[in-house]
């Protein structure tokens, strides 16, 4: 019922100006699945960068980022600070929105419906329901179909990715392990998803249905993956990308694009690192270009061994 009311609100007549009537325009539809997935599709082949203020957002835009992710602290600082990590201050988000013309995304806690409503009102272009922040709900994710803005969600394997898509996510990003500067988990999760999809090839319908039960995903989405040979939405890589080579590696493994969190603004020369990662993603299959852009970049962000993290420090276990 609530859903139907929302749907209704999202269809608007053209503003009643005489010109609009003369142009004989139909209804306008907002927040449809096609618009949400279409927005995500426009990000393909791009780099989305974490930023905490307007100055960083402008550096990211200048370097060629397709979008920026506004947040209170980059993941490596969230690790250091401890405590509860929440949505960024709205004032900060607005400052970033005003500073750049590229899309601005924002992170909310898993299951925190109201933080998402606040970001939507502020005008954020996409919401990341993110395990990097402290979860607000350990059982349920947000019902993302109720929103006009699209969502991106993290996933470690095909089942998790398809559960998020079923809830309305218009984009998936593999979780990796944020704030570590260590690409190993990003690789593990990308390989898990791509490998599972490759494994669907040759399965007949009963086998696909059985497999869907096994990975706790809706059967129709598993069948759609089998038919298309890919996820039904755009799939980016995230969580541990610290160098141009890391970014190109994720592209070679099948990512549609990358999120870089701490990797840029925790390096010794953020503007150069940002530009180098954009070029590496664009030329991910050309090692000569990657060699060139990697020269003399200075220090990458300090890395962490993910095997030495205690269980409650591992962010990827949040949400499933």
């Amino acid at each position, binding site marked *: 019922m609530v859903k139907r009311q929302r749907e209704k609100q999202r269809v608007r007549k053209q503003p009643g100006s005489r010109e609009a009537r003369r142009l004989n325009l139909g209804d306008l539809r907002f927040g449809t699945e096609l618009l949400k997935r279409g927005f995500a599709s426009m990000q393909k082949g791009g780099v989305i960068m974490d930023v905490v203020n307007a100055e960083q957002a402008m550096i990211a835009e200048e370097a060629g980022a397709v979008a920026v992710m506004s947040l209170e602290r980059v993941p490596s600082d969230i690790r250091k600070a401890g405590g509860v990590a929440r949505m960024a201050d709205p004032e900060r988000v607005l400052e970033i929105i005003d500073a750049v*013309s590229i899309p601005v995304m924002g992170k909310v806690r898993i299951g925190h419906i109201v933080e998402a409503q606040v970001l939507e009102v502020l005008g954020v272009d*996409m919401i990341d329901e993110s395990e990097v922040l402290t979860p607000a709900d350990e059982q349920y994710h947000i019902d993302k179909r109720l929103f006009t803005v699209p969502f991106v969600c993290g996933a470690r394997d095909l089942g998790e990715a398809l559960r998020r898509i079923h809830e309305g996510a218009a984009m998936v990003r593999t979780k990796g392990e944020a704030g570590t500067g260590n690409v190993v988990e990003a690789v593990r999760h990308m390989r898990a998803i791509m490998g599972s999809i490759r494994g669907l090839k040759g399965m007949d319908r009963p086998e696909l249905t059985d497999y869907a039960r096994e990975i706790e995903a809706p059967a129709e989405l598993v069948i759609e993956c089998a038919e298309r040979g890919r996820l039904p939405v755009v799939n980016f890589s995230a969580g541990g990308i610290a160098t141009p080579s890391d970014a190109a590696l994720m592209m070679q493994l099948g990512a549609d694009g990358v999120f870089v969190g701490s990797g840029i603004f925790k390096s010794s020369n953020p503007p150069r690192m940002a530009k180098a990662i954009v070029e590496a993603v*664009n030329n991910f299959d050309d090692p000569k270009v990657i060699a060139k852009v990697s020269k003399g970049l200075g220090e990458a962000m300090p890395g962490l061994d993910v095997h030495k993290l205690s269980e409650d420090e591992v962010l990827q276990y949040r949400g499933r």
Partner: protein
Amino acid sequence: MDVRIGVLALQGNVSEHIGAFERALAGMGHTDQSSVFPVKRPADLERCDALAIPGGESTTISRLIDKNQLDEPIRRFPGGIFATCAGMVLIATRVDDPKVRPLGLIDMTIDRNAFGRQKESFETDLPVKGLLGGPFHAIFIRAPVATQTGLGVTVLSRLPQGIVAVEQGRHMALAFHPELGGDTRLHERFLKNLKI
């Protein structure tokens, strides 16, 4: 006749454009020798009869055009150009934002993100001048408009916010995304205009 279409593959909605042109070519009964392929380098451009510049982020694509030294080759490209959304921004002569360096191939002034942010993105049925078969279901995503066009530019469609579809010679520019729907009438119209 066979026709070779390149899709500028620097960033954005590349595979959808390739798919839409393949469907349009098949619908028009073109031979198997026709092909649609990604274009990344100046050498790729030499093989093309037409070039599609897809949607994506215009500031990013503009920067990558410069980095990949495609700026001059595209300006000198003798074939037709099919530009959508970010492509429409890039193909214009004037853009309201200095972060984009437009290629100056269609005489028009662009207002980027004229409709607002993503929550203002919309779908609608749009009348397009001279298009048979009724209005075109158009998908506008953080779309631009043209606020001014020069002589020699034909306006195909407009909304209260501005002009959203134009033709100039063999070039076509659209503020919306025909590659996201199943309707290939505008792709076909562009291909017919190439007169190959």
